[in-house]
């Protein structure tokens, strides 16, 4: 092993917090610098990405790590969104507390949905969560006095400190919270809970023989995942300024699932790619179809078509999503001193140990 190859390796502490926090800090500083340079509209979009990433991280944990599927995460986002909007309308507490409450209420909803979900698997679980996504908007329509009916509830953006613009401040909040959530979830996945999630995913019988309470573990995963989705929904509402059932249609739940798969199911960093796709793909596809003069009919379905096409291509070329593909590329990168062949990772690791 030559010196260059050795120097290229980074040894991180094994204590989870010490491993994840510095990385998050570096990412945070980079993003802070980037956000300050952006135009107002791009700041808004980066903030939206942050909100979606939080929701996607929850979905990735549920599906990738715990092996449960949900077609209802758009509805959990709506739960968080309405919670934060109601709190903003009726109280004047700190918005961080309101966001935490939104995550808490959505997590409670996750427990309610998660308990029957422990008895269901695969398409049956998908069907049940789908039902939740379909039924939830009716609740908001049923009590217009509380939930604002069609118009929904308007929210106020937290006042920006100093010379920051509203969009810039919002983007920093959303991206910052996304990083915090990623660190917390990363730590969780390194703990005994994370191991229990994976054990249950891989083999429920083996997990229960090992002393893991399978049902409790599944409900816990559902609750954490729903809490993340609720927080994501609450963050999204800070952007749009209104909580409204129309913002969280069934298609959103399906798009979340597709974005998670594209990003890399079970990864956390992959969810950043998922978030970028959710925000930018519709815009790119519209400009592409405008460029080729496809007309408004094609315009509208272009995003869905491209999303589907990208999903198929990704599943063929990189079955583990974008993040999985990047990892593969990294593992197979040309290596100086080894004739350009990818270094066999296990050797390198044991050499470094």
């Amino acid at each position, binding site marked *: 092993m030559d010196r260059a190859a050795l120097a290229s390796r980074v040894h*991180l502490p094994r204590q989870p917090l010490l491993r994840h926090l510095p990385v998050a800090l*570096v*990412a945070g500083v980079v993003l802070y610098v980037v956000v300050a340079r952006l135009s107002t509209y791009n700041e*808004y979009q*980066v903030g939206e990405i942050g909100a979606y990433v939080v929701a996607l991280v929850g979905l990735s944990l549920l599906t990738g790590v715990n092996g449960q599927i949900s077609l209802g995460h758009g509805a959990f986002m709506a739960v968080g969104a309405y919670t934060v909007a109601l709190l903003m309308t009726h109280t004047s507490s700190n918005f961080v507390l309101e966001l935490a409450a939104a995550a808490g209420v959505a997590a409670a909803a996750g427990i309610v949905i998660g308990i029957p979900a422990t008895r269901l698997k695969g398409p049956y679980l998908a069907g049940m969560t789908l039902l939740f996504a379909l039924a939830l908007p009716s609740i908001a329509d049923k009590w217009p006095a509380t939930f604002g009916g069609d118009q929904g509830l308007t929210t106020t953006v937290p006042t920006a400190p100093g010379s920051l613009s*509203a969009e810039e401040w919002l983007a920093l909040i959303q991206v910052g919270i996304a990083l915090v959530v990623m660190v917390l979830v990363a730590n969780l996945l390194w703990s005994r809970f994370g191991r229990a999630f994976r054990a249950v995913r891989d083999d429920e019988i083996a997990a229960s023989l090992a002393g893991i309470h399978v049902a409790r573990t599944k409900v816990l995963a559902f609750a954490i995942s729903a809490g993340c989705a609720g927080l994501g929904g609450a963050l999204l509402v800070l952007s749009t300024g*209104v909580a409204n059932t*129309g913002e969280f249609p069934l298609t959103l739940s399906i798009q979340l699932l597709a974005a998670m798969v594209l990003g890399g199911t079970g990864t956390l960093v992959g969810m*950043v790619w998922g978030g970028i796709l959710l925000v930018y793909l519709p815009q790119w596809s519209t400009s592409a179809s405008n460029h080729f003069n496809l007309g408004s009919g094609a315009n509208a379905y272009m995003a869905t078509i491209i999303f589907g096409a990208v999903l198929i291509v990704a599943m063929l070329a990189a079955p583990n999503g974008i993040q999985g593909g990047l990892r593969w590329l990294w593992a197979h990168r040309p290596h100086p001193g080894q004739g350009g062949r990818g270094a066999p990772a*296990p050797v390198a690791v044991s050499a470094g140990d």
Partner: protein
Amino acid sequence: MSRKTRRQKGGRRWVRAVMAGSIGLMLAVTLLPEAANAESTPGVTASQITIGATVPLTGPAAPGYDEIAPAMNAVFDWVNAHGGVYGRKIKYIYLDDAYNPANTATLTRQLVLQDNIFADVGSLGTPTQAAVQSFLNEQKVPQLFIESGCNCWSNPKYPYSLGWQPPYTVDGKILGSYIKANFAGKKIGYLYQDDEFGQDVVKGLDMEIPASSVVSQQTYDAATLAGPLSNQMAALKAAGAQVVVLATIPAATALAMLPAAVISYFPQYVVDSVGADPPTVGPLLASFAQKGGASASQVSASAGLLNNVITTAYFPPEADTANPWVQDAKKILQQYAPTLYAKSGLDGNSEYGVALAYTFVQALEKAGKNLTRQGLIDAIAKDGKSFDTPGFVPLSYSSSVHFGFEGEEVVKLETSAPPAVTPTGSWIGSVPVSPVYVTSPGSGPIKKYTGATSTPPKNFG
């Protein structure tokens, strides 16, 4: 391999991925262009005014409503062909929000923050526009002539928002007073969409119709509207309602009338103008009847259900081919929006778009050469009442009233009246059955309007 090494390997991948991710994001965003620096008035140069809108071009709300923005664009093209307004050409960017407020929120920010529009003009929908009302007002971007009759557009809290079409409560009050005067002693039933639209209409109806004569109130949910409203119509029949008021969108009008006909229930229908445009509702009746398994003769007879329907109108019907506004709107569409005209001709929606766009052009003219956002709002408040429109009543704009038309006439759809002819067929016409009334959406009285209507400018069309 030990767990330890696998962990370390995983950890390093983590770091690299985060770094790569942030660098990638950084590159992606830095490559995007910075927004142009705001000049004195955003969206206005010596030669161009950029305005925008979000409208449903796809999705369930699109049929019919997707004609409005292209029709508006035809008027702007006509203005541009005649030298623009004070030498400035109008550039109209309309984006598809598919009637989803989340899309509206994002696209409106794209229009304001990236495309630097001067004003948001002719955006459609109550939930969609409510979602961006506070954003547009914070940014001091005029939110003009919102295509919805919600009472919420005239609110001192939102000085930059203005409605245009009659508020739904005005529809309700005028229909209610007609019912009280003409169907006294009859049993009355309601079927309304259970949201702001339906509730605002009912609010107006209840101001006029004595509660004792309302025997049944039925509702439906727009989000779950998928099949015939059979239960509701059966309940109205069972309650003995002789007059049925529908505050329904076009599809729901058809889905109410068809199952009623199946159970031989033919009450006197009174339909809010939202759900009564014959060129829109006629084809829906036929297609739903066909899907429901009706015979060919029943399908062709289904349009007859619209005969004798009472509704309201605030500008001349497209079938009134002698009206100069109708003639000019047709000319403008033929010349500047030939694709739209070939597809749907001049119907209620395209006529609406032409009139709304021309209202905006006059506001620009009155705002003067030194165009500012505040100046535009002030000009509408000051001169809006004298703008030329096809409306039966003048616009109501003032510094405190941000509703447009607050008056209309009651009309009856009749097979004997001249039909509306569109490329999709020829549809039942209408005859006025009342004078033109004006009223506010509040508790104010309903008055007869006796003033003149305006005529289009000489060079229009």
